[in-house]
């Protein structure tokens, strides 16, 4: 009897709470604070007024809209979460920090589905940590491309880094590409050769591991390309559009500088995707980071207010608002429908981004310290005297990454060939792949002379290496290196 009574009571409770908490009950007036970029304050006020008028849930927001730049929002939020805006916009590189600080409320299932369905895949990836969606994509225009001065640079040269450098040197004008103080720009060269730095995060925004291939033969090609630029006397490490007014002919920056550059160059402004560089007769088209801005909701104690805020966030990042933002502020939309519209496709800045997009890499979660560690590669490359110096730059980078972070399993447990192979002197690791039979095989065949020595090592360190004495090639030829992990046996194979 007691059990039955308890059951009835529980049911009654559930039903009553359902009634109380049904969607209509979101109706009410909420005092909220919003942080948006200064340019967008007026538009956002208008959009909130539209939301108040049009939503069917009876939600009315009494909103204070404050101008806080996307770059500062995260730092201000982290300093004092309680005092922060209920809804705030931020650049995606701050995402993990904000999740770690507990400054972002995770999205519910409905909202998460909405985000995934309507936005560019790259921007969705930027809003996810672990498996949890924490923010709403707002724009998808945080990428860089090339502005140039048509009166200095001939149109036919814009696809070649070498020609552009030569043109700048001939004209005594600067080529501005922020290589010495920003990893965001510097990564361009690495993406060109197919290097990656991919980070895995958990549901709380903590970094679990990194899969980083900057220190690789491809990475060496990348720094060789970078060397050409940074060693030029007319390279300028800057990404400000205003450099055109102080003797620059080329600036690599993004859509935010469009008006500035237009104002300085007028009809001489050229906008295009990044050029290619050539190493050992092969062309590599410069890559780029493809980032976005996000909109987040601060965690709340009051479930109803939180639900109402999520409704507003959804509205503000929906198709209508993104369209309005594109029209009023030229912000590139992350919404797929708006992205596909003709007006967006025709915008010159966004068109350049779209031209660059086949070579761009979505900027997912990246550890804050990575930016500091990676940015010095530019200086190291500039100071390098020879190829060993370039390799040293990569080694330094790798050492720091390895000492600070947990490498992903395929780097940590993977085996590589190292030795006097392919013209390297024990300073380069060549990747191997594990076959179905459990035997590791080098990805490339090496031309080896009799007496060539090498070893196979794990995790790019000497903790585990085989064979105990250097392997010596007995007969010259082209071989793949085989390694049996179970027996520790190293052998050569012609195919």
């Amino acid at each position: 009897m007691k059990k039955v009574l308890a059951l009835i009571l529980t049911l009654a409770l559930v039903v009553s709470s359902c009634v109380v908490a049904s969607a209509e009950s979101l109706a009410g007036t909420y005092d909220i604070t919003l942080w948006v970029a200064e340019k967008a304050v007026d538009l956002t006020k208008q959009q909130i007024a539209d939301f108040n008028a049009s939503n069917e849930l009876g939600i009315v927001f009494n909103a204070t809209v404050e101008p806080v730049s996307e770059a500062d929002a995260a730092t201000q939020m982290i300093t004092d979460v309680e005092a922060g805006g209920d809804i705030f916009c931020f650049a995606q590189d701050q995402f993990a920090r904000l999740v770690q600080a507990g400054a972002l409320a995770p999205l519910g299932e409905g909202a998460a589905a909405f985000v995934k369905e309507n936005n560019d895949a790259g921007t969705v990836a930027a809003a996810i940590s672990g498996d949890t969606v924490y923010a709403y994509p707002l724009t998808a225009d945080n990428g860089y491309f090339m502005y140039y001065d048509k009166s200095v640079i001939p149109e036919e040269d814009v696809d070649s880094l070498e020609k552009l450098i030569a043109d700048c040197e001939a004209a005594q004008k600067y080529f501005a590409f922020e290589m010495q103080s920003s990893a965001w720009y510097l990564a361009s060269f690495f993406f060109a050769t197919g290097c990656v730095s991919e980070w895995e995060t958990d549901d709380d925004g903590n970094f679990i591991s990194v899969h980083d291939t900057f220190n690789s033969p491809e990475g060496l090609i990348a720094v060789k390309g970078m060397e050409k630029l940074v060693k030029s006397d007319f390279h300028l490490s800057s990404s400000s559009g205003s450099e055109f007014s102080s003797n620059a002919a080329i600036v690599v920056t993004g859509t935010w500088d469009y008006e500035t550059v237009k104002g300085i160059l007028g009809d001489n402004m050229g906008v295009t995707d990044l050029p290619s560089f050539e190493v050992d007769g092969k062309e590599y088209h410069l890559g780029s980071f493809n980032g976005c801005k996000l909109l987040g909701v601060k965690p709340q104690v009051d479930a109803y207010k939180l639900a109402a805020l999520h409704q507003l966030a959804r509205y503000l990042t929906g198709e209508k608002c993104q369209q309005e933002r594109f029209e009023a502020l030229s912000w590139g939309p992350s919404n797929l429908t708006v992205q596909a519209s003709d007006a967006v496709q025709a915008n010159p800045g966004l068109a350049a981004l779209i031209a660059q997009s086949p070579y761009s890499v979505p900027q997912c979660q990246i550890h804050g310290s990575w930016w500091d560690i990676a940015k010095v590669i530019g200086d190291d490359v500039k100071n390098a005297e020879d190829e060993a110096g370039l390799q040293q730059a990569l080694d330094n980078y790798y050492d720091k990454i390895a000492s600070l972070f947990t490498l992903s399993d395929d780097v940590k447990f993977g085996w590589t060939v190292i030795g006097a192979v392919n013209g390297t002197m024990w300073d380069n690791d060549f990747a191997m792949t594990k076959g179905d039979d459990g035997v590791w095989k080098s990805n490339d065949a090496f031309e080896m002379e009799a007496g060539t020595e090498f070893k196979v090592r794990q995790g790019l360190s000497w903790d585990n290496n085989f064979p105990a004495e250097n392997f010596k090639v007995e007969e010259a030829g082209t071989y793949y290196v085989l390694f049996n992990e179970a027996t520790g046996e190293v052998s050569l194979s012609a195919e």
Partner: protein
Amino acid sequence: MAQISDLEFLRLSKAQKTGYKIRRFFTGIPKAIASFFLAVWHAIQKAGKAVGREISEIGTTFKEGDWKTKLSFLVMGFGSLARGQILRGILFLLFEIIFIGYMILSGGYWLSMLPSLGTQGPTKEYNALLDVTVTQYHDNSFQILLYGVLTIFFIVAFIYTWRVNIRQNRMAEKILATGKPLKSGKEDLHSLVDDQFHKTLMALPLTGILIFTVLPIFFMILVAFTNYDGTHNGYTNNLFTWVGLDNFNTLLSWDVTGGAGTQSYAATFGEVLLWTLIWAFFATFTNYFLGMFVAMAINKKGIRFKKGWRTILVLTIAIPQFISLLYVSKMFAKNGIINGFLMDMGWIKTALPFWEKPNWARITVILINIWIGIPYLMLITTGILMNIPADLYESARIDGANAWQQYRKITLPYMLFVTGPYLLTSFTGNMNNFNVIFLLTGGAPTNPAASSAAGAVGYTDLLITWLFKITTGAESQYYLASVIGILVFVVVALISLIVYNVMPSIKNEEDFR
């Protein structure tokens, strides 16, 4: 090393004299250190004795006191009330009630949480109906630390007041024993603007200093012993907790692999400290001597438009550094106006790396700092220079002293004597000269070896700008910033103490009067 007599000293050659002085200085160091620790030991002993005296006096008060006094040990102000000093009694009693009330209502909680800095972090709960995740907040480590410290301050204040209360009883008993009447409340109030006026005057500033200076400093020092950072902010994500001396170990460790990549934290710290000292030395003395030189040049007889020259120089002070320094930083950029001019004139083929190479950048900041600093020094020294009695120079000239000798023997000693304390403050000020470095270079160029140390320190970073980078950097390591803050204090205090004690204005206070 044995000290030689004055006569022997005078017989030495110039080089020998200098050598002797230097040797004396270094051989004196162990003795100085020993005497420092001895002094500290004496101070501790003295403090211990004082506490012992206090306790024994409290004991005698209790033993020899009447029942009113004895009850006052428990109920503060009872003795005063019973002896008719109503105002004092009420104040004591009120304080005790407030204290006990505070301790019961919140102080006890803060104090009990202080050892752990909180036990429960925020919890998240999914509300399926509204499809939202609601967060509930619990302990707040930051508040626990802050209010815990405040509570300790309050307890100390209470113990002090309790002690005063006991002493009052003893004094009252003694006064009554002599047959004199005790002070009434009215007389007490009156004395506050009369013989106790110093207390009235000092009450407000003292409270202010305690709350706005001592408490925050105490709090910040304690942060160095916690793991307070971006991922442990103590409230909205994870609580922070005590970690003992771990942070000091991190910063002063020579271990290369321990989180610093290719260079240990200790090496990085050493490099930054060395540059900070070099910078402070040059920034102080270049400004000092060049500023004095400019002032003397303008003061020279026969120089026309004196006021005009001074106005031109002072203009650099009139423009806020925020604007002028950012502008100058742009001027020296690779494509800035200076390089542009030099290249247009055909004097150089490629831009000079003012901000790109470590030593170029370091020298450039020192030079630009001269430009900012000279006007201040010129203003300060102008007045002092005019103050040097002209007859000193006149008699020197008659004796055949040249300009350099006059400067060495008259101007410089006089200046050093008067501006000694200023030099010291400007040296410590330059060690913490955030503005110039931050606005000119922002610490650039980055030091590749130290890029993975917290805050990515650069070649022109001072300790203070490094500290700033750490707190605002990727991981907001407040604890590490706090450790650096403490070490900066130690360095500055050490230098100040040594210099202060050898300064002529302190040593020979009677000279030049």
